[in-house]
């Protein structure tokens, strides 16, 4: 049997399993709502140029502080920019930051976790103590410090969040690796002469994928929140970016009469995060029944 044949033979049950999982996920109305929200967010980001009626950066000082209306769905801000268009374009920023951060964190964390779990011994102890230290910083504080050291801007935020987030993945993958390390097929692979790297990436990693996917889906919401908080604090995205946290901050001065400038971007963050959280909970239940809660 050639490799290609082997792959097709393997793909069919996998495909069926996937279809089964998706059906199971969507049969729960709460997860389905989350999936719909995430889909809406993805579509908004992809189609931003077609959905947004105005240029998100176009300043129009004659049209400042306009109330929400048919013309300007979410009103205009202190520079006369259309808040709706800015919220629509902001979805691109938040999704990009959230996903890139998690890709960085999960790739780095997976490699470290695989090595720690597979090698064991002092390597494992050292890695675990290092993750302890990273986890000794309360929530986003280390990320703020790293971003301050790197200088303002979105790139710093993505780097900073990635650096502070990888230990969670390292611990997760280490745990998974420990649980499959002693399985017979790993022993088999070793006896047939496979090297450490091959065993880790070819034989152990596929068994960790479900856990990684579940964890990423549960973390997207939190990275979006963290990035928005950094934008709000002025260390993340810079003017005139339509980033949601930054928009909330710039509207904070006008809460009394122009409530819409801060309210709509905040609502966009809230709805995106809640959608990802619902989807993440649902995915966990479907892909990892051991973690299911009451």
């Amino acid at each position, binding site marked *: 049997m050639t490799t290609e044949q082997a792959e097709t033979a393997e793909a069919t049950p996998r495909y069926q399993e996937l279809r089964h999982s998706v059906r199971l996920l969507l049969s729960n109305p709460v997860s389905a709502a989350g999936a719909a929200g995430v889909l809406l967010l993805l579509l908004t980001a992809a189609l931003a140029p077609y959905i947004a009626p105005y240029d998100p950066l176009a300043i129009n000082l004659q049209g400042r502080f306009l109330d929400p209306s048919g013309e300007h769905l979410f009103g205009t801000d202190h520079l006369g920019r259309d808040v709706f268009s800015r919220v629509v374009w902001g979805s691109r920023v938040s999704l990009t930051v959230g996903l890139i951060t998690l890709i960085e964190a999960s790739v780095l964390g997976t490699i470290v976790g695989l090595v720690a779990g597979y090698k064991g011994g002092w390597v494992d102890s050292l890695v675990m103590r290092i993750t302890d230290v990273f986890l000794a910083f309360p929530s986003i504080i*280390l990320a703020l410090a790293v971003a301050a*050291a790197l*200088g303002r801007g979105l790139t710093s935020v993505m780097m900073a969040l990635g650096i502070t987030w990888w230990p969670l993945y390292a611990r997760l993958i280490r745990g998974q690796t420990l649980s499959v390390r002693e399985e017979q097929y790993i022993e088999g692979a070793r006896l047939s002469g496979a090297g450490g790297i091959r065993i880790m990436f070819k034989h152990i990693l596929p068994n960790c994928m479900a856990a990684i996917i579940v964890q990423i889906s549960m973390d997207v*919401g939190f990275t979006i929140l963290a990035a928005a*908080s950094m934008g709000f*604090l002025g260390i993340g995205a810079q003017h005139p970016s339509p980033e949601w946290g930054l928009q*909330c901050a710039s509207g904070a001065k006008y809460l009394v009469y122009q409530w819409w400038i801060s309210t709509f971007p905040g609502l966009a963050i*809230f709805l995106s995060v*809640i959608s990802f959280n619902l989807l993440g909970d649902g995915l966990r239940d479907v892909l990892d029944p051991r973690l299911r809660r009451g």
Partner: protein
Amino acid sequence: MKLGQYVTKRLLQFVFVLLGTSIILFTVSHVIPADPVRAAAGPKATPAELEAIRVKLGFDKPLPVQYVIYVTNLLHGDLGRSVVTLRPVIFDLAERLPATLELSVFSLAITVIFGITLGIYSAKNRNRLGDHAIRFLSLGGISMPSFWLALLFQMVFFLRLGWLPGGGRLSSGMVPPAHLTGLYVLDSLLTGNLATLRDALWHMIGPAVAQSAIGIASVIRMMRAGMLEEMTKDYVTMFRSAGVRERTVVYKYVLKNSLVPVITLIGVMFGSILGGSFIIEQVFQWPGVGSYGTQALLNLDFQPIMSITLVMSFMYSFSNLVVDVVYVYLNPKVSYE
């Protein structure tokens, strides 16, 4: 292993974590910045100031020597100087720490009390309307950007309704109580100044609620899940079939057992409250360490940022140490791992 041994081991671990923290922060402040001297001296430093910082922090020496200088300065309480307030950072921190501590502890108390009560209610009324409402709200709570919640809070309760003050620790015109601890609530209690006490508490409601929303949601979820799991255990069935009243079963046995894991969450909650203080204190003009940090971030005032990170991680690690010891003390079954 005895409790004493566990405490010793845990203390050693604490020291190790502090050491690690200092290495990470040293890397962040001395290795990551493109120009660490300029970062430490601030964006507006003159050449003379730059030179002074270079000599003082030993930037012309090899990294290990720089690290030794860094730690020596820390141990002497020299956290550098703020380029905004022009004062040593340690003075600024000492002045502002009580405000942050007071608010954090108050928020933590709200988190624990509301989280546990609502969690119990939710578990007891599983799948009824109240349970669904609480679960929905707690899901909202963990998905809510805290700065947005704080802004909404100000918009509704301060600007529209006028029920709560807009910010600060006391109303303007109010004289702070005599400085004993720096915690206004405690100081006004100790000096018997009830008007100040009321005013101080009134000012804490807004920021504390905004700060505890995420925590309350997590405690509810954990408490609810814990109680539901506990209720399926054999001893519950046994008590019930032996005719013990449901109230007794729930409050005397189930509740006690499901409270223990929630204790571990308290340390985590404290950390997330400290992390959130940057935003909440900024929005509510709370004169604590968090708003100091936000100002420092806006001005790229580097030494205060690094010092706040250090102080907060110290407070967080210490609270986790306390929580772990209490947890093991209350729950001797747990192997001392």
